[in-house]
Structures are given as structure tokens and as C-alpha cells.
């Protein structure tokens, strides 16, 4: 049992570290790589939980994560980056130091909120949940501090990794595989990029500063 605990926590911790490093990374290509490693670790975590809980569903989740999120999605993202020639793109919506400090604060909040309220839950789930909530909040932070649409999408992908991490830690939860598929549909819509291409068409860049356009016109 103790090996189950420590390995699961280790993988959760690695996912959190990569979620955190998304915050400080400015180059899109590097963000994609970080996300990819995060997804690889997540699929390993899913397989491990499947082994520990004897759940076929979790193996399935791990497989979906591996094939689509760790392999297919990053390839697609890299193609978009190459196509729009954004390999060296740097965008600064908020100073990196400030967003890092806020990130640390969010992790603190997640731990403070989850640990006391889950005293009675199984301890495996307990710490996993704190980690997962941190990953989710960090992903949301990335989404809010970046102006670039692609960077926002990567933030969303990271958030979604946090959600799957929480889901695989739930003892015997039904629908886990279905949840990850449903989330993937959402991601696919984002990445396959009805938006990316159309936004490109209309704004000429992937910078979403222009999103305040409506406000300025005051309609």
C-alpha cells in the first residue's frame, strides 16, 4: 500500500511542478513541451491508479491521455505554432515574478482549503486532491495572465490535466473515462481551432488584446 501512496504522490507532485513551470515559461514551444511532459506523467499516473484500484476504466483513461493528449495534441499545437511562425513569440501580460508569487499563493490556498475539509477521506485521495486543485488553479491563472490565444489554450489543457488527476484518484468513481473523453471533445474544439484559424483571419495575430474591442465601442 505504501508504494501505491508514494508513487501516486510523486507523480502528482511532478504534474504540479510542470503546471507551475508553465507560469514562468514565456516561449510557446517550451510551453507545449512542458504540457506534453505533464500529460505523459498524467497517463502514467492513470495507469498506476488503474493497477492499484484494479479498474479497467482507469487504464482506458490512461490510454486516451497518452495517445491524444501526450502525443496528438502537442503535434497539432506545434503545427499551429510553425504555421503562424510564432516559435519565438514572447508575450508579457503580467510580470513573471508577480504571476509566480500569485501561483505560490494559489497552491497555498488549495492546500489550506482541501486538507482540513477532507480529514475523514482516505489519505491517498486527500493529498491527491490538494495537488489536483493546485494544478487546476494554476492552469486558470495561466489562462488569465496570457494574452495569446494559444497560451490560453495551453493553460486550459493544464487545468484539464488537473481535473483528470482528481478524477483518477476518486475511489471507484463511475464515468471517469467518459469524463476524460468529454473533456477531450472540448479541447479538440479549442485546438483543432475553429477559433485559431478564424481569429487569425480577422485579427491577423493570435494576440487577443483586441478582445476588448467590443467594450471600447461601448455597444
Amino acid at each position, binding site marked *: 500500500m505504501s508504494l501505491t501512496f508514494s508513487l501516486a504522490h510523486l507523480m502528482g507532485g511532478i504534474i504540479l511542478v510542470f503546471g507551475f513551470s508553465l507560469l514562468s515559461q514565456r516561449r510557446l514551444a517550451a510551453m507545449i513541451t512542458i504540457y506534453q511532459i505533464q500529460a505523459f506523467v498524467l497517463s502514467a499516473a492513470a495507469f498506476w491508479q488503474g493497477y492499484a484500484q484494479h479498474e479497467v476504466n482507469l487504464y482506458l483513461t490512461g490510454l486516451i491521455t497518452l495517445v491524444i493528449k501526450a502525443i496528438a495534441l502537442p503535434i497539432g499545437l506545434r503545427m499551429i505554432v510553425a504555421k503562424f511562425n510564432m516559435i519565438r513569440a514572447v508575450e508579457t501580460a503580467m510580470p513573471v515574478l508577480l504571476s509566480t508569487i500569485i501561483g505560490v499563493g494559489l497552491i497555498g490556498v488549495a492546500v489550506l*482549503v*482541501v486538507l*482540513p*475539509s*477532507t*480529514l*475523514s*477521506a482516505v489519505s491517498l*485521495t486527500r493529498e491527491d*486532491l490538494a495537488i*489536483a*486543485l493546485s494544478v*487546476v488553479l494554476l*492552469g*486558470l491563472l495561466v*489562462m488569465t495572465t496570457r494574452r495569446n*490565444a494559444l497560451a*490560453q489554450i495551453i493553460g*486550459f489543457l493544464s*487545468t*484539464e490535466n488537473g*481535473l483528470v488527476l*482528481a*478524477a483518477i484518484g*476518486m*475511489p*471507484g*468513481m*463511475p*464515468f471517469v473515462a*467518459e*469524463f476524460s473523453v*468529454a*473533456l477531450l*471533445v*472540448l479541447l479538440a*474544439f*479549442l485546438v483543432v481551432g*475553429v*477559433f485559431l484559424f*478564424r*481569429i487569425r483571419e*480577422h*485579427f491577423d495575430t493570435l494576440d*487577443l488584446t*483586441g*478582445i476588448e*474591442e*467590443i467594450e471600447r465601442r*461601448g*455597444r
Partner: protein
Amino acid sequence: MILIAIILPLLAAPFLGLIGSPRQGAIANVALSGIVFILTIAAFAAPGSGLVHADDLGLVFGGVTGFTGLTTAVASFFYLREAEPRLSLRRWRVYHAMCQVVLGSTLLGLYADNIGLLWAAVEGATIAATLGVSMPRTASALEAAWKYFILGGVGIGLALFGTMLVYLAAQPALGPGFSAMSFTALTAHAAGMDGSLLTLAFVLILFGYGTKAALVPLHGWLPDAYAEGPAPLTTSLSGPLINVALIAILRFRHMLEANFTSGGTALPPGPFLLTLGLASLFLAAFSFSRRRDARRFFGFSSIEHSGIAAFAFGIGGAAAVFGGLLHMLLHTLIKSALLQVLIRAAALRGSTAPGHYGFSHLRGLIHSNKYTALVLGAAMFGLTGLPPSGLFVSEFIIVMQTIQRSPWASLPLGLGLLLCAVAILRNLGPLVFGHAPPRTKPAKATPETHLVTLHLALSVVLAFAMPPMLVGLLSQVAEALK
């Protein structure tokens, strides 16, 4: 019955995406919505059982959703006549398919007896609505869609986390498996759930589904989506979608309340809901004054009414919950009527494209067409909540309950309601009776304005002379979820 009502529109959507001409698509859309409406009414006789079954709450709101879906489809049919040249066949295919997906997922959200399925329904509806909003393909429509998608995505993520925490909180009472995700079982065993975990879950769910209900900190997408999307889809169908989110919040609120009152460790849900409700009400009240676009204006009105419903649920007790539910029902009817007649009004002035809904553009409507102008005026008056509007009844119940249960909150509530009503009345006069812009010619009304009148009449009947069967049904629901 229920399963067919959900699956039929979802299955039909891909075929609508292949159909040969926009006109045929619109006809198929009306036919499908008609069948779904009949099925939602027939569901009263056979509510089904198991994973997807309609409880009383689902039945009532399912019926309203079916009705609104049908009138929206009819309005879309007439919308097509004006807007057809502007958009390509491909856009119309997407549009009609998305109308059906939104309808199907809304019904799934209302009928699902499973917190996971509810979440999936909301997610599906979000994706479909985003595609719908982006349909005009103007830069501002894409901005609106992107905003909707990002905020909606955040909301969906938070709601899923909350959903998983509810499952975890139910472990001590129900153990692993499907029963820990069923609303029926969760509500029955709320007392045995882990209270502090449930509180955390409720906060996440409140913000998650609160995004879809456009409660204040996460409301930003709604006015943009209303103003920039294709008129019938985003406006009329988003009413029922808001209901799904509010009903979800109501159901989870009840679990928390039940756990709290039976001595569990949960926090009372009231203060959370009261705060968000009042914040929405006041944000709307202060945002009204500066809006120049009518659809954006009424977007803020949806935020207002969503806030009032959340406020009523926060007050708690059977009567307040009854008031909140009645408010949601009537608001759906009046708001979709209003938005439909607004399309007519814009058509009288030449174009239904986004950007042609400015108050200055539409003002003095009575000089264009008397009937349409008066119906528009009646619908706007309905939104103020002054008698004889139907909303007067629900707001009266909510205010009375507030005075009784938490008197301190009645002052801000009354002030907010008053400010909103004044803001709407201020715009009503010039819009309907003001001087028309130069070169305005009288035009003929179109037959579907009668549908709008039907909506309004129905809302008044529901408020002042509700059939006893419906009163009984709603009171039972309110009693069970107080």
C-alpha cells in the same frame, strides 16, 4: 418518452448539418422542435425511471423548454427570410444543427438524475452555443464566442471538480458506485455526507454553474453573446440553458442545507447565494444606463433575473424557493418573447444583423408598426416586474419571504428591483413611442408576432391564474428542495 425527447434532437443534428437548403433546414428544425415539445408534454404521463428520468421539477421546466424551443424554431424560420442572403449554406447548416444540440442537451440537463450526466449536458450545450455565437463570423462575434468559450471552459472545469468532490463527500453515506452520483440518492442521504467537503464542492459548483447562469463575477460572456450571436439561437435558447444551471445550483444547495440542518458540518448555503444574487442584481441595475444596444441591454436584464432567482434560493424555505422557480419560468417566457419581438422590430427597420439593434436605430417603433411596437412595449413592461406583469407575482413572493426570513436583505433587494425597473421604463418610452429616425416608413407586421403575444399571455396566465395542478406540482418541488 424522455429518452426520445433528448436523443432525437441530438441524433438529428448531424443530418441537419447535411441538409440541402437553408429553407429545408429551417422546416426540419421546426418539425423536430414540434415533436420534442409534444414529447416533453407527454412526459407528464410517463416520466421514466433510472439514470434519466424526470422529477416534477424536470417536467415543468422541460415543458417550458420544449415550448420555447418550438417558438424559437418558428422565429428562426422567419429570421431566415431576412438573414438568408447574408450567410452561406454551410453557416445555416451549422446553425440549425446547433439549435437542436442546444435543445437536446438542455433537456438532458433537466432530466438527468446523475451529477455527471448533468455536467456532460452543460458541456455539450456550451460547445454548441459557442459554435452558434460564432456563426455570423464577424470579428466581434468571434470575440464574443471566444470570451464565452474561455469563461464557459473555466466554469465547466470548476463544475467538474465540484461534481467529483460531491461524489467524494457522499462516500461515507453511499459508498462507491453509481448511487453516489444520483440526485435522488444524494438528496435522500444528504445528512450522512461529509459536510465540510460538501461545502467546498458547493462553492466550486456555485462558481462553475454560476458561469452558465451568468451570476456576477463570471457573467461577462452573456451580454456579448446576446448582442453578437445570431438572434434566435443565442437569445431564446440561452434562457432555458440558464434555467438548467440555476436548477443544478438549487439541487446542490438543498444537499448542503439538509446536511446543515441535520447537524452536519456543512456551512449554510444562504449567504453565498444571497451575495452572488445581490451582486448580480446591482451590477445589472448600474449597467443598464449606459447600454446603447438593445440586445446587450436585455442581456444585463437576464443577469438581473438570474440574480433574483439565486437570491430567492438563498433566502430558503418552501415559499421562497417556489417564488424563485416561478420567477425563472416566467422570465424564460417573457424574455424569449421579448427577444423574438426585437428581431421583428429590427426587421421592420431593415436588417436583423448584429449591430442593428441600437436603441437609437429602433426608437419610435410605433411609427413603423403599431402591433409590433405595442407587443415590444408589453414585453419590456413585463420585465420590470410591475403589475400586471407576471413577474410581479414571483417578485412579490420573494420580497415577502425576504422580509419574513432575513429582513436586512429586503432593503438592498427592493432597491435593486426598483433601480432595474426604472432603467427599463426609461428606455421603454422612447423605444416605443418616441420620434422615429428620419425616412421611417410604416411596415406590415408579420404573423409570428402572434406567437410572442401568446408567450406574454401565457406568462400572465401562469402568474395570476395558474392551473391548480401546476401549483401543486411546483409547491411539492419547493417543499422537497426548501
